[in-house]
């Protein structure tokens, strides 16, 4: 005899995904970095690997009118890099698009 209820749905499916390195602590870290002189760079680390970051970066570039790229990192997975300080914009946008929940965002920097 089997219990029908438990078949279709695996409650721990999400947890397994959480183990992936790209997700890490489940937070999306948004950092700012200075590069030569006044120029800055915004990095977004921890976006779920389920998303197509190439598509996201394309949308971001258009939305914020800045250049951007996706960098593959051995430890942190795919990381989004955007030119300039896009921290507030990217936070708003990620939440607005429903890609990340507001409480998952962790903004670093000054």
């Amino acid at each position, binding site marked *: 005899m089997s219990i029908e209820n438990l078949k279709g749905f695996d409650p721990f499916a999400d947890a397994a995904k959480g183990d992936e390195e790209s997700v890490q602590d489940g937070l999306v870290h948004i*950092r*700012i*970095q200075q590069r030569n*002189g006044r120029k800055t760079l915004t990095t977004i680390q921890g976006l779920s690997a389920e998303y197509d970051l190439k598509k996201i970066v394309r949308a971001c570039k258009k939305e914020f009118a800045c250049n951007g790229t996706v960098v593959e990192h051995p430890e942190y997975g795919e990381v989004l890099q955007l030119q300039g300080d896009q921290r507030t914009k990217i936070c708003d946008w990620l939440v607005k698009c429903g890609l990340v929940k507001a409480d998952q965002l962790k903004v670093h920097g000054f």
Partner: protein
Amino acid sequence: MKDDEGEAPTAEAAEEVAGPQTTGPPEDDLDLDNLSKKKKKKKKKKLVLDGGEDEDEAHEAADPDLDLPEIPDDIDLESFGKKKKKKKQPLNLDELDDALPDEKEDDEVDLESFGKKKKKKKRAGELGGDDMKDDDKENVEANPWVDSDRDYTYDELLQRVFNIMRDKNPELVAGEKKRFVMRPPQVVRVGTKKTAFVNFTEIAKMLHRQPKHLLAFLFAELGTVGAIDGNNQLIIKGRFQQKHIENVLRRYIKEYVTCHTCRSPDTILDKETRLFFLQCMSCHSRCSVQTIKTGFQAITSKRSKTKQ
């Protein structure tokens, strides 16, 4: 503190016992007449109606939340002396409408200004005096739901718990708790590409934290590197302004200095098997804090340079 201040209003207190009854009717009228009017307005009107001696009443009538800032100390931590300019204003305000409970005033009092502090204490003392009156009142109207069948409302319960809290912890009301004074970071540019955090060691000492730990946090947050030079200054790569450093320090204090439960700065940070724990000396709570992680660091130097 509470005693000597409490003494002064006792004469009033006698009147005050009768106070609620006398002030009751006009308040009721007001309620009936302008139901739509907000509490704040009511308070003002009441002042006009009742005159000076009922100022204290106004305090009590104030929303319990207004007294909240008395309890936590974190405001001080966050101010860094920036509010120096603002200080003048509240001082005047203080004199003008002492009667209106003003949250702002509490915010201002963090710095080394002793005159202002005294003033604040006095205010707190008045509040303390109120509480003594409150006790008398409590018998009369502390639990308005007792006599009726109705349930207590949230606000009533809130008022009740605040009354009890003030009752049991007079020092909370009196603002006797040790204030944590934060000095602003001194930040100067070094050449075009570096920044010196002049009083870094001093600030680490003030926060009772290892400079190493604070340094790790600063670098992780700012996404940069640096070192402590011979004069105990922290030299940071990149250009940063005082406000930037302040922001980071504020976050450091929030996470690693003030107790997460009671926000007291009287805490110890100790390491236990790779994890840091914040142990509070005031409320004895103990909680783990985030480990400092640098996270992803983009390569910002020119590729040709890194190859060499």
